[in-house]
Each structure stands twice: as C-alpha cells, then as structure tokens.
C-alpha cells in the first residue's frame, strides 16, 4: 500500500495542481450584466490596442494594488466581503460613477496622508487602508496644495510622505481619466445629454457664428452649447484612453475629442460607436442589464468588419489575464521547494522505521551517485526496494517544478506572441525571464545530480523572481510600447536576453552557494560528496554566467555603438553589467590560481548575488543615466535587506569549521 502511494504520489500531486491551475482558466459566467464580454472590447491605451479587461486590471493594480475590488474591506474574509471583478469596477467608474465613487479602491498606506485627507481610521466601515473617491473629495483642495509643492521636489529627494502624495496624485488622475473616458464625469443622464447635444449642433454652430459676426443670436441655446463644448474639452484634456474605433480618416479616438470633432466643418458626425457607448452608460446607470448587453453586442458587431485583428488580440489578452500563469507557477514553486527541502531531512525518519529495513543502509541523504562513488554506503538496489520517503518527496518536487516550469514557459511565450517581442522588454519581463532561466538551469542540474539541490534552487529563484515581477506589475501596463531607441527586436533578442541569462545564472550559482552554507552550518546533511558536488555545480554555473554576461554586455556596447555612436559610455547600467562580468572573471581566476578552494568559491558566489542585485535594481535607484527607470522606496529597502542578508550568509560561511554542524557530524566532510 505504502509502495503504491509512494509510487503514484508525485504524479498525483502534479495532477492535482495542474487541475487547480486549469480550473482558473474558465472565465466567470456573467449573471446579468455581460461584464466578461465587456472586458473583451478592444480600445487603445498606452499607445497599444488592449482589451478593457487589461485596462481595468492595470488601473486597479495602480490604484488598489490588486486586480479585484473588495467593496467591504473592513470585513474579515470569513464574513464574506463583496468582491467584484476588475471589469465590473471599470464599467461603473466609466459609466456609473454614482456607485463606483463610493467603493473604497484608493489604497493609502502613509499615515500622514491619511491624516492630511482626514480619512477615518480603522473601525466601522473602514479598514484604515482603502478609501473611496467620495471620502477623499472633501479634502481635495488641501491635497492639491500639497501636491503642487511636492511636484516641485525632485523625485529622488522626496520623503516617504511626499512620495505618497505624488503616488496619490497619479492614482487620482488615472481615476479621473477613466471617469471621463465615456461621458463627462458629472453627467446625470448621458444618453439624453448626448442626444440634446446632437440635435443642437446646427443651432449651436449658427448661434456661435452669429455671435462672432456680432449679429443677434439665441442666447439660451448658445450658452448651453458652449457649456457642453467646455465639458467635452475638459474630458479631452485629461487624455483618457481611446475608446472609439477608427472612423474614416480618424484613427482610434478619445470620446472627448470625437464629441468636439462632431460640430467642426470636416468633423466626423456622432457615430454609432458613440451612441452604443451612451446606451451602455444609460443602461448601467438605470440597472437594465438587457439593454446594456444589447448595446454591447451592437458595439461588438460594429467592430467586426474593420477591427477583427483588434478583437482577436483583445480576446487573446483577456484569456492571458484570466490564466495568470505567473501566479499559478509561483504557488506551485512554493510547494515544490518545500517538498525538495523536506526530502533532505526525510531520509533519517524513514530509516528509523522498522518496516523498511533496507533503507537503514541508505546514506543520510538521497544523493545516490555521489555517495556510491565516495564509497560510504553500499549500493542499494533501487529497482526492488520501495523508494524512500525522501526520494518520493524529491520526485514529487521534480514533477511539480516541471509543471510550474511548463506554466511559466506558457506565460512567457504567450506574452512574447501578444507583444510580438523577444522575452525581455522591461524590468517586469526581466524578472519573469531571470526566473525562467534559473528554473531551467536548476532542472538541468537536478537531472544530473538527482539530489534535490537543483530543485530547491529552481523553486526558490522561480518564486522570488515571480514575486518581484508581481510587484513590478503595480507600476502599470507591463506590455508597454517600446520607446524609439529600444524599438528593435534584434538587439532585444540578443543583448537583453544574454545579459538576462547572465543574471539568472549568477543567481543560480549564488543560491547553490547559499544551500551549501545553510546545510553545512545548520544541518548535518552536507557531507564531503555533497559539498564537492555543490562546488562543482557552482564552478560550472559561474563559467556559464561569465560567458553570457560577457557576451551580453559587449553586445550592449555594440548596440550603443549602432544607435548613438559610442561603444562604452560608463552609464550606470553598463557599469553594473561590467561588474558582473569582472566579478565572475575574478572568481574563475581566483579558482584557477588556487587562491580560493571550495568554501572560498562558495562565499564568492554568494557575493555574486549582491553584484547581480546591484546591477539589476541598484543602478536604477541612482536615478541617472540612460537606463534608469525610476524606483519605489520599498524596492530600495528590499534591496538593502537582500544585500545585508547575503553579507550575513558570507559571514556564516567564514565561521570556523568547528561551528559547522555538518563538520561536527563528520569532521572530514568539509
């Protein structure tokens, strides 16, 4: 019984996780309003065609740091607070602000900002963190005054409070843009207001012409018409997303611009798309799902003849959003990593149980090849014996890491296809790709060594990089368009990919070294053979890292030479990459010269983590140079924490051997 369980556990576990992941693929069914279908409508935002679903999720990430809205955040999860999807939120912000303005979506973490805006503390109907547009409005003048001051402070010199102000300003602006993308934010009955405007265009123009010519004109009509124009002007000035499909010579248009365009001599008259949006707005505000869905269908069928590519792309992207492959992979990496770590310890327990006497002869950890070669254990006949618990755990972990890797790869490739770009285009995708490369390397190491080490490295780096990516996604659209100088797939595919593989492999070497230290100092599981095999892995990976970081860095220089005529400019990002190359080269020369041995190599590889983190994030925080993208304070704190932790590990690595648990267990081990 136990044997069968152990035999099928790995595959079974993988199947369960795979089903969990696949279960998330199905889009939620719409009950009354077809918000899911609404989310598949294409529009243009950030310079590219996106589905409304992406706009909704990205906007929510920017404002609330989540992809859904909890309208009752003061309730505990067990009290079932109402959670609504991003598209439903966006639809209401755009077309039914009377409702949306009461939802607590603005996340405020800074206590000074909370008190500036006189927001309620945690308590009845408030969780002390999320506030609605309506809650903020009373203090908006105070806020604007503060913001005006903060905008004059250079971003790098801002305090935490000032950063919070600047961020809040961005969030409020984004919200105001969304509120003004379909109708003027203050519209009471938009379909009626629109049809009034449409009917009064001829009169309005006539009155305006008469007024300019100094002739008598209809004052009432004129004033109302001018007021409407001013509202549309306000909408257009906010520069919200472009909701209206191309019409005639016009490309994708903003609602405000299209409304202003209509009365112009060569303007496009108010077209069906504008009407359909107005109908949706009226139906949503009037709580008439059928009318809403009918108008939505009309708008879709309007797009079919001319915008089929945009519709397809939007649908594909919605599917990707729904799939959330990186979230799925992240969860599975955690599970896989835990199983792999347990596998190092599991062996001892099993050996103690009398039911499997054969296993008592097994070495203290499942590194079968190495122990066999070192002669410390009798070769066990694996074909006959039931696999040890330790080996079962390891195999389960292998299956899970493969599953997560497949999901990770699917996400990576899907993104590439959606964007039509190589894998790395910005900081966000570099995190995804570093994780992917490190997991691949870890799986290859595991294939050769079968001792769980590759698995732990793969799942830990996979998890950490995906967490980093998750936080980077809060900055906005992760599939943003490439600025002119970066708009070249050739260099993105060569330079950026090589450098990123260099980062990934340097991290793999560093995390292998961490395993060496942790197992050596705190456990008895690091015997001589394991130590040696770890050191060999580290050495091999450092060679690999040197190759890719060098080639990548020089290719970057050549790109710079191609685009602005200088091979090397000592720009911070270039220098960061150069330091990685120099550091890896230094490790190799130290090793060749016999100046460091196993432990020296291990400590140097950990320092490689610091060097890589510096190049990846640290240089961006200097706020200088061509490659700097701006940063958040939280990111800086994490970087400092990471560097300190790595230094602490190096400190552990330098401890005298007599304090190493593994050394005490078998003095010859290290």
């Amino acid at each position, binding site marked *: 019984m136990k044997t069968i369980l152990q035999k099928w556990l790995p595959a079974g576990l993988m199947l369960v996780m795979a089903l969990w992941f696949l279960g998330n693929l199905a889009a939620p069914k719409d009950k009354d309003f077809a918000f899911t279908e609404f989310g598949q409508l294409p529009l243009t935002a950030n310079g590219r065609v996106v589905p409304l679903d992406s706009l909704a999720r990205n906007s929510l990430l920017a404002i609330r740091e989540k992809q859904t809205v909890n309208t009752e955040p003061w309730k505990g999860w067990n009290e079932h607070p109402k959670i609504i999807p991003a598209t439903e939120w966006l639809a209401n912000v755009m077309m039914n602000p009377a409702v949306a303005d009461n939802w607590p979506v603005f996340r405020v973490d800074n206590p000074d900002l909370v008190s500036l805006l006189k927001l309620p503390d945690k308590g009845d109907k408030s969780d002390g963190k999320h506030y609605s547009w309506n809650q903020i409005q009373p203090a908006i003048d105070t806020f604007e005054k503060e913001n005006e001051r903060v905008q004059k402070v250079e971003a790098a010199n801002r305090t935490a409070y000032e950063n919070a102000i600047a961020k809040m300003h961005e969030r409020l602006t984004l919200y105001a843009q969304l509120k003004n993308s379909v109708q003027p934010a203050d519209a009471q009955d938009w379909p009626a207001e629109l049809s009034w405007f449409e009917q009064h265009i001829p009169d309005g123009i006539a009155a305006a012409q008469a007024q300019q010519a100094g002739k008598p004109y209809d004052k009432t009509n004129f004033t109302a018409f001018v007021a409407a124009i001013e509202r549309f002007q306000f909408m257009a000035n906010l520069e919200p997303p472009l909701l209206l499909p191309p019409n005639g010579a016009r490309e994708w248009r903003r609602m405000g611009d299209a409304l202003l365009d209509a009365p112009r001599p060569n303007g496009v008259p108010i077209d069906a798309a504008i009407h359909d949006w107005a109908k949706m707005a009226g139906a949503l505000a009037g709580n008439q799902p059928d009318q809403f869905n009918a108008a939505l269908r009309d708008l879709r069928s309007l797009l079919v003849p001319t915008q089929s590519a945009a519709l397809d792309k939007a649908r594909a992207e919605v599917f990707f959003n729904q799939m959330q492959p990186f979230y799925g992979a992240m969860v599975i990496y955690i599970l896989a990593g835990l199983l792999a770590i347990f596998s190092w310890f599991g062996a001892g327990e099993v050996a103690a149980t009398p039911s499997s006497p054969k296993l008592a002869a097994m070495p203290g950890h499942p590194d079968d090849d190495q122990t066999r070669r070192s002669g410390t254990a009798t070769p066990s006949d694996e074909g006959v014996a039931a696999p040890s618990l330790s080996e079962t755990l390891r195999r389960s972990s292998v299956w899970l890491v493969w599953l997560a890797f497949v999901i990770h790869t699917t996400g990576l490739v899907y993104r590439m296809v959606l964007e039509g770009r190589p894998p790395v285009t910005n900081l966000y995708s570099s995190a995804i790709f570093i994780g992917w490369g490190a997991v691949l390397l870890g799986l290859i190491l595991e294939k050769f060594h079968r001792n769980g080490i590759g698995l732990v490295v793969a799942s830990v780096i996979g998890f950490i990089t995906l967490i980093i990516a998750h936080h980077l996604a809060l900055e906005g659209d992760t599939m943003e368009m490439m600025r002119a100088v970066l708009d070249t797939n050739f260099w993105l595919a060569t330079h950026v990919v090589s450098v990123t593989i260099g980062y990934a492999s340097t991290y793999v070497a560093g995390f292998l070294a961490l395993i060496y230290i942790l197992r050596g100092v705190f456990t008895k599981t690091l015997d001589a053979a394991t130590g040696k095999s770890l050191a060999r892995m580290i050495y091999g990976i450092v060679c690999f890292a040197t190759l890719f970081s060098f080639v990548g860095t020089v290719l970057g220089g050549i790109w710079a030479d191609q685009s602005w005529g200088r091979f090397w400019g000592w720009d911070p990002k270039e*220098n960061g990459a150069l330091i990685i190359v120099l550091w890896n080269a230094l490790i190799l020369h130290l090793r060749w010269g016999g100046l460091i041995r196993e432990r020296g190599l291990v400590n140097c590889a950990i320092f490689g983590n610091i060097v890589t983190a510096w190049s990846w994030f640290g240089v961006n925080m200097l*706020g200088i140079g061509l490659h700097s993208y701006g940063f958040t304070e939280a990111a800086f704190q994490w970087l400092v924490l990471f560097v300190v932790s790595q230094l602490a590990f190096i400190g552990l690595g330098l401890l005298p051997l007599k304090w190493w648990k593994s050394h005490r267990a078998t003095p010859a081990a290290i």
Partner: protein
Amino acid sequence: MNLFVRFFTSLKLTVVLLAFAIVLVFIGTIAQADEGLYGAQAHYFKQWIVLGAHMFGHKIPLILPGGYLLGVLLLVNLVASHVFRFEFSRKKLGIQLAHAGVIVLLVGQLSTDLLSRELQMHFTEGQTLNYSDSATDYELIFNAGGEVTAIPEKLLHAGDELKISSLPFTIRVQQRWHNSDMNYRAPMMQNAPALTTNGLAVNFDFRKLDDVKAMDSRNIPTVVFELRTPAGSLGTWVASDWASDAALIEAVRNGYAQMGAGMAQKIVSQLVVPQSVVVDGKKFTFALRAARVYHPFSLTLLKATHTTYPGTDIPKDFRSRVRIDNAKSGEKREVEISMNHPLRYGGYTYYQYQMDAGQMAEQAGRTPTSVLSVVRNPGWLTPYVGCGMVGAGLLIQFLYHLAGFVTKRPKK
C-alpha cells in the same frame, strides 16, 4: 628580468587588477550622482591615478589606480601571459581565444579613447551643412570677409595676451567662463554696470555658472576680452555661445515669450547682431561658437519626422531624410537616418540624436529641426571582433568542460 616576467605573467596580478577594476567601476558609478557622468568619466575612468572620491554627497579620501592604469596593466598582464605561457593544446584553445579577444577589446577601447571624435550636426528642414560642430569644444573666430581665424577656446586663459599672425591686433583675455548664464538688461532696471560698453554687453548681462553635471545638459561658455593694437586698446567685448547656438537662441526666445512675441523678437535680434571691429579699414566679425570640422561634402535635411504611439507622448520613431551632395565623387543621393540605423559615410557615422519635429513643433509653428551625432571612430570594429573572439573562446571552453562533466559521470 625573470622576476619582471614572473610579476607580469602572474595570475595574482590579474586577480588584483580585476578586484581594483570592480572597486573603481563601482565607485565611479556611485560618484555619477554627485559629479555627473562626464565628470566621473574624467575623474575615475579616463585617468591614471584617482585621488579622492565622491560618494553619496561625501568626499572620501582614497587613492586608486585609474581606468587607464588598470587597462594598461591588464593589457600588459594579458599580453605577457600570452607571450610567455602560450601553449597550443585543445584544452587551452578556448581560454587562449577568449583572452586574445579581451586584448582586442582593450586595445580597441584605448584607441577609441585616443582617436575618436564626437561631433554634431544641427540643422533645420531645408538647411544644407558642410560642417559638423563639436559638442564639447568651442572656438573664438574672427572673420575678415570670409577669411576665418579660429582660436580654440581651450587656449584662452584669463590674463593671457594672444598674438596671432593673421590678425592685426592682440587678444587680451579678461574672463573665460566654461559655463555661463545670460540675462537681458531691461532698460529701466539696470542695477549693475554692464560688463563692457561694446556690442552684446550693452543689452545683455553674462555671469559665470558652475559646470553642469546632468547627462543631457552642456556648458555654455562665454569669454570677455580686449583687443589691442600697438596704438592702444580697441575696446573690450563679450563673446558667448548664447549668441551663436541656434537652439539656445530659440530657448531665449521662448523664455521671453511671456513679455510678448514682439519683445521676444526684439531681444533675440539684439542677441544675434554680429559684433565686429574695424582695423586699418578691414572689418573683423567675431563670435564664440562650437568648434567646426568641415567635410568635403554636404548634407541637406529634407525631412525630420517624429512619430509617437497613438494617444500618448511615447516616442515611436525619429527619422531624418537627408541628401548627400559630394561634388568630388558626383554623388547626390537621399538616405534615411533613424534610431538604430545610422549612416556611415566619408569616415564618419551619422546617428539620429535629437529632434524637434512632429505634432509639438507643428502646433508651436516651429520649423522641424534635427540633430545628428557625428562620430569618427577608426576602432569601431574592434568590439565586434573582440566580442566574437571572447564569446567563441568561452563557448569552446565551456562545451569542453561540459563534455568532460557528462562523460565522467558513471553510467546508471
């Protein structure tokens, strides 16, 4: 001798040099926040010995080998190791190749540093230029009916008196400012006396500024000088790049736009009035301007296009269509220069650098302008060759190790 060879071929030297290089690059990067990119380059990288460093707003006393010294020592180390320890074997092939590639890169970079030249071409649509401007060097020119005498700004030192054979006067330099500010002297509010009573200084005040640090900004030099003949002084003048550079003049016009377009135009026209002096009936017009390098051909900017992604300000493409006119070779053709697609012609490479075109310029009623970065770098191929060699070398070595690693594993 033996000791000498042993020192320069030692692996320990390599290790020490690499370690110093890491420290230097790190400090030189941090220091950019305080010293600016160009300042840091000069202080740490294009330098033999580094004395003192700026980090996080503090001055730190230290002595480090500079970039030149480290580069040269690494080069000697590499070459010496190659010469004295070279052995041809399959095992070492990759390593040898990789190190030879590093030599090529180092030599290439040193030669680039010594031989390359960076210039710029600023033109508006329709303009034809047969010269490029230096981005960093300036010259004081005296033009006597087309006969131009150019004195590099670097040679002008406050207190010096220069005698140039082609000029019938000497130049006594009173002030020379690397970077300067300029202000219009409003007629009713002249609170300080003018710098001099001639030319530009009548209407404009100039004052010294600290050197700029930010990457995309530059110093704007100004000189104050007296012209003298044996008979006595001809007067004192101010010459400044403020009055020569078209982009700066445009910026001045925009800066005074709030005083009304007419007033801004008046100020600008006073700024660009040529200054001159007459000696023995000969008129010498003078100005301080970016140093020029003349080409045996000309380029005409036909069209400058700047496109953005729909509904955003994110630049999508910068593109200049230019016509090459080479009377010597009879060439007359049109080419497009865009981001990542430079033009290589006549020993120079022309890169799209800056642009004022597209919707913004159109709405403001400005003629589109384009700036090309013009670079002469005889060593431009070395990175390509070096990168190829190192990449191939490391790959060979890596595969060799990998093959060894895989075959050495016991069979299951």
